[in-house]
């Protein structure tokens, strides 16, 4: 095992690449849960983003149309959840599970029907990398961030924007109020349902952005179930990051680093003992459990998270 394997520029670059989709899902989770709606189908929104992004990019030969359709697909799935949990006051966990299964079934079904066994076309338009000419030749930084995908930078921008939005704007304050104490929020004239709808839909879009990045930015193809639980890791990052965008990014980076290590440490050994890289995969989940249990800081969800809300008149 060498230092290069642990801290090299390529490990750093891989960390960012692997953290980006997780962070986007985590941002989605943060926005919706801050408004008081639990959305565990981030994974599902991500997956429909992956698939429909590829289909649209393939049909239109335009990656931006692909990206737009990916977002739309993620928003539509989230819309089902919003309708079920806000209007019908459905159980949000069951609805979320249903949508995860739906997304997996739907994309796999359509993938089989449209691309059969041949797979998605090889000439798929893809999301571009951002080449930073200035950093060319700069040691470390050049290799680490000189040529990252556009979506990685987008993710970074969204973290800043959402952090400012949630904690520095009136609308952000309202959204958080709705998630903490919907009754009080309504009393001062905030439209609880409208804010919740908007938050859930936004979270679907954010997760789908992560999905589109995976299929159109990284893999340049679609394979069944390709999100591989990243939506759930995003959920974990959201919790570990204490329901803040910056925290979610930090957690995603830790998880992404763990992921990057499991590649760079492949076959490495300390002394005579082979590093069990498979076990590194457990890192996000165990850290999250420890965080929620209060062993690594304390992670507290918004007070009204996951609870349906009925206006005074209705009840």
């Amino acid at each position, binding site marked *: 095992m060498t230092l290069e394997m642990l801290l090299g520029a390529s490990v750093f670059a891989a960390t960012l690449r692997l953290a980006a989709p997780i962070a986007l899902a985590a941002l989605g989770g943060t926005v919706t849960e801050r408004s008081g709606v639990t959305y565990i189908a981030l994974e599902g929104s991500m997956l429909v983003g992956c698939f429909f992004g590829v289909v649209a990019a393939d049909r239109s030969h335009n990656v931006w149309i692909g990206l737009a359709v990916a977002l739309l697909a993620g928003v539509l799935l989230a819309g089902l959840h919003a309708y*079920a949990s806000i209007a019908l006051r459905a159980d949000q966990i069951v609805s979320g599970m249903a949508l995860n*299964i739906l997304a997996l079934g739907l994309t796999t079904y359509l993938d089989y*029907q449209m691309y059969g066994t041949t797979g998605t076309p090889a000439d798929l338009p893809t999301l571009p990398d951002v080449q930073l000419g200035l950093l060319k030749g700069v040691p470390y930084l050049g290799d680490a961030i000189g040529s990252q995908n556009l979506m990685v930078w987008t993710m970074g921008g969204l973290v800043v924007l959402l952090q400012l939005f949630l904690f520095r704007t009136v609308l952000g304050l309202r959204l958080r109020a709705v998630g903490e104490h919907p009754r009080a929020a309504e009393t001062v004239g905030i439209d609880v349902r409208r804010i919740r709808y908007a938050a859930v839909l936004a979270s679907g879009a954010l997760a789908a952005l992560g999905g589109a990045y995976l299929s159109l930015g990284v893999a340049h193809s679609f394979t069944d179930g390709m999100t591989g639980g990243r939506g759930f890791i995003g959920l974990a990052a959201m919790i570990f990051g204490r329901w803040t965008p910056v925290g979610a990014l930090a957690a995603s980076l830790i998880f992404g680093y763990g992921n990057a290590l499991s590649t760079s440490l492949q076959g490495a050994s300390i002394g005579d003992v082979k590093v069990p890289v498979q076990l590194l*995969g457990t890192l996000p989940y165990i850290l*999250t*459990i420890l965080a929620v249990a209060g062993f690594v800081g304390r992670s507290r969800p918004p007070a009204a998270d996951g609870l349906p809300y009925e206006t005074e008149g209705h009840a």
Partner: protein
Amino acid sequence: MNQEQAATTGPGTASPAPSVRQLTFQWAAGPAIPVLSVVIALLLGAIFVQLSGKDAIAAYSALVQGAFGTPYDITETLVSAIPLVLTGLAVAVAFRTGLFNIGAQGQLLVGALAAGWAGAQFATWPGIILMPVVILFGIAGGAFYGGIVGFLKAVRGVNEVITTIMLNYTIVFVMHWLLQAGPMTAQNALGTPASTPIGAGARLPVIIPNELVLFSRLHAGIILAAVAVVLFWFLLWRTPLGYQLRAVGLGPRAAAQAGIDPARHMVLVMAIAGGFAGLGGMIEVSGVFGRVYDGFSSSYGFDAIAVALLGKNSPLGIVFAALLFGAFVHGGAYMQSHAGISSNLVAIIQAFVLFVIAAETLVRALTRRRRGARKPVEAIA
């Protein structure tokens, strides 16, 4: 319980969360609403198939043909239903106590790993000793994994939904390690990472002779599943503990007032739930595969949520729901190969079932409207 803890435990305990967790108990005694959910889901599935340019009738007839067409298919449907019964019980027993066990999948895998380890470790033991040992290892493995969830909820107020999701993923990676580079790894001709085969005494025998159904794989695990269903019923409705568990589920505060310690019951019920799922994993290893394959259990633990909810968390309901989903699993493969329709249609139908159940107010609104519409007629009559 201070406010912070109350918040962290989230819906289901301190707060009067109006959820399926409670509402399922209030469903009409008969199977009307579950059946209606399935019918709605099948209709939605049919619309979907038509929209995708295929023939829904061809799809469903292939599904039925595949699931029940020959005696062999019927036994295969049963083979698929067995683990679903066990994981369904794992989800249902937790529901009955007001807990949402999304972790049946992980608990099943731990049970399978524990049983697979014991079955290989003590392979030379005679079956009469080895079989009970392997069963116990399976149950204990699942119970341990479920118990962690109950413990963290009872002691640290951690929402079980979060822990179970996280533990489901944790065990997947632990399993990769155990079977690819860890202590359970065995060389295997097929190339799939797998454990050492279990001893002959740990194998559940096939119970249908070849003269009756050729090459049937239906194994004695069906008996274990039946025993588990009876145990589930007996535990919940015929023992003081079961009464207490259900009391906690119906109203944790009232139960606490009556001197029932909800914390202790959380650990216990999650261990029991894990035990059921772990037994399911053991049955798959001992009855079907003879060893643990990496990632062998497609999604029995996740399907279990639909099985439990559709079965209204009742013993018979779970059996019927497991048979339905078992038929979906086995019939789906036939539908794909013979009608050219992806077996994932089954997942879509399952999602619709869950979604309809989740949005049960919708179903209720529909039934109420129907009843409402009938009333004037009755009035006239």
